[in-house]
């Protein structure tokens, strides 16, 4: 009786196991084609803008793909005392009076990708950047940039990527000289708005 019971359970388990085994076998066969160590599923990019040190900014950007067509990019920057005058206005005006000492900056940029391959290929999106320059004599300049960007991320090989980003928009600067000694030729607080354009050429890593 025990043998019959064991045999029937054995047959039942075998029957239950066969389809699962077959399915597992099929999946196993296909897995070898899809197993690329996560390379095709890479959604993260850490990059740096190679041009920004020219204007006294060094930093890193992190971009994370969300779904097939969206990504969000955040950046953190350290402002260095070195600078060249910018081509388009008017931060030069303040720098000509006060040497910059340093500062910090952040950026936030959601990207909408043209194809279902985020964060690869072409994208567009708004970009907000904030920089706070510390000047000599305790004055500060806060810079707000709001641009519409077009960019392209090219994945090179297995780990590295190249990117470029163009943006046009509006820049608003707030000069705060309240902590600085009073000067006749500068107000204590001044705001200034202008058109702004942005170009970034960068390299990065993907993971």
């Amino acid at each position, binding site marked *: 009786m025990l043998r019959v019971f064991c045999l029937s359970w054995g047959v039942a388990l075998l029957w239950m196991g066969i389809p699962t085994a077959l399915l597992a076998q*099929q999946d196993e*066969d*296909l897995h070898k*084609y*899809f*197993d*690329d*160590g996560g*390379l*095709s*599923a890479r959604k993260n990019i850490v990059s740096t803008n190679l041009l920004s040190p020219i204007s006294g900014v060094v930093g890193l950007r992190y971009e994370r793909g969300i779904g*097939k067509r969206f990504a969000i990019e955040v950046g953190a920057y350290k402002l260095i005392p070195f600078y060249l005058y910018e081509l388009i206005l008017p931060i030069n005006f303040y720098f000509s009076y006060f040497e910059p000492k340093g500062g910090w900056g952040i950026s936030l940029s959601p990207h909408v990708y*043209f*194809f*279902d*391959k985020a964060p690869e*290929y072409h994208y567009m999106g708004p970009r907000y950047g904030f920089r706070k320059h510390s000047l000599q004599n305790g004055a500060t300049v806060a810079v707000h940039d709001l641009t519409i960007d077009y960019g392209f991320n*090219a*994945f*090179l*090989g*297995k780990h590295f990527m190249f990117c470029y980003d163009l943006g046009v928009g509006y820049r608003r600067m707030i000069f705060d000289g309240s902590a600085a000694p009073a000067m006749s030729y500068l107000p204590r607080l001044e705001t200034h708005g202008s058109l702004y354009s942005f170009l970034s050429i960068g390299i990065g890593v993907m993971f």
Partner: protein
Amino acid sequence: MHLKNILGICLWLFVGQWAIAQQVKWGPIHKEKAKVLITDIVSHNPSQTIVMKARGRLGFLQSGSQLERMDASFNSSLIMKLAPVFEDNSLDVEFCFESNGQIYLFCSFANHKLDKRFLFLQRVNATSLKLEGPIRKIAELSFAKRYRQGGFGYTFSRDSSHVVIYANTELRKNEPEKYGIYVLDQDMEDVWSKEVTLPYLESRFAVEDFTVDNDGNVFLLGVKFQEKGESKRRGTPNYEYRILGYREDGADVEEYEVALGGMFLSDMKIDVSPKRDIICAGFYSEQGTFSIKGTYYIRIDRKTKEIEKMSAKEFDIDFITMNFTQRQEKKAKRKAAKGKNIELYEYDLRDIIPRADGGAVLMAEQYYVTVICRTDPRTGITTCTNYYHYNDVIVVSIDKSGDIEWATKVSKRQTSVNDGGYYSSYVSMVTNEKLYLVYNDHKKNLDPSLKQGQYYNFSVRDKNGVVVLASIDGEGNVSRKALFSNAEITAITVPKLCKQVNKKQLLMFAKVLKGSQFGLVSF
């Protein structure tokens, strides 16, 4: 003349006109976003039509593929997004077709660890348009660079009993040329496959065309470039054509070198005749690769595997100057009289249609792109405009013995700006009696009182656009008439996306800015 005879002629004229009249039946306009494009007509039968659509511009990376089913009146009845996945891995849609009553979707996955691209197949339920059944690997190719991953193509045999998948491997320039051939039967079961490595470098060989016969034998047409110098076809010929045959499940391999005396073969296509012989035809030149002096035909016997027939015919001066203005004609004839070489320029071989008797019909279209750049002196900004020219079509008939029977020209002028010629070119329709070409044209071009060589350009922007039906009979006589006006349907026909769906019907596709329209022309 007796009244009886007059009545008889009138009746013949009436019945004759009625009998050859083409009926056009249009469906409603489907509203959709401007960037949604039809990429293929997947299936058509009297009760329904299934098409594939995608977002994006033609020629660029496309995404968001979807299948749409329409009823017999072309009313949309179902739209299904295609998002093939295997576990968490998204697959790219490659192509979709119907075989033996079943729709199959082919999609690919690039494995960047192995540097290989795999082609998979999945069945599509014709009722729900959903993907069903297991995913099956069909083909694979290797690639060396992420942005040059090669590609897959397919073609059916004449009786649709076999389909060949061609996998174009893109390797480094100094590596041997490699490709894969995968022959499937009509139920997509593997028949045979072969990985081919040629003794030519990747940069020195290019496959231009491929075909499969009813027995599953595969033939490829390749261009072998000279070992040194440019590997692009421009100006002076630096290449030769090779035909590679794979018979007996790929075990029996033949290579044919195609040459025509001292002539340059400027274009060639291959196909399999109903008698199962390989036929190659194209154009040759004395000057270079941009011009054509005549046409040639080569037939390779199925049994002996030898070149059985090779013939060539030079276009005469009357044919070359056909549709020229009187001034152009005089100038060309004067040059010819002085013994100078006169050829036709910028013709692309579009199609080769094998005839039931072993002959073939060749079609070539004059196609070229001109780019005009202007620099604004105030800003220094240079703007370039691309003009896409699709002009006359040459039709050449080759008889069963392989001799050139007749050649004719169908005149048309289509020039468009920065659109890739989306509304230009033509679609051909073959019936038992005639060959038809359907294309967009300016309505004034149908006026018989037009001067010789005078043509009005078709423009998508004006309301003079008509869809013209050019009929070519068995003797090479061409007659043209307006099939319908684009203004009648408030959309513009896209000939490149129209398709002959059976022996008597042509599926028409027309586009408006934010919509599309389908129709059926019955012959």
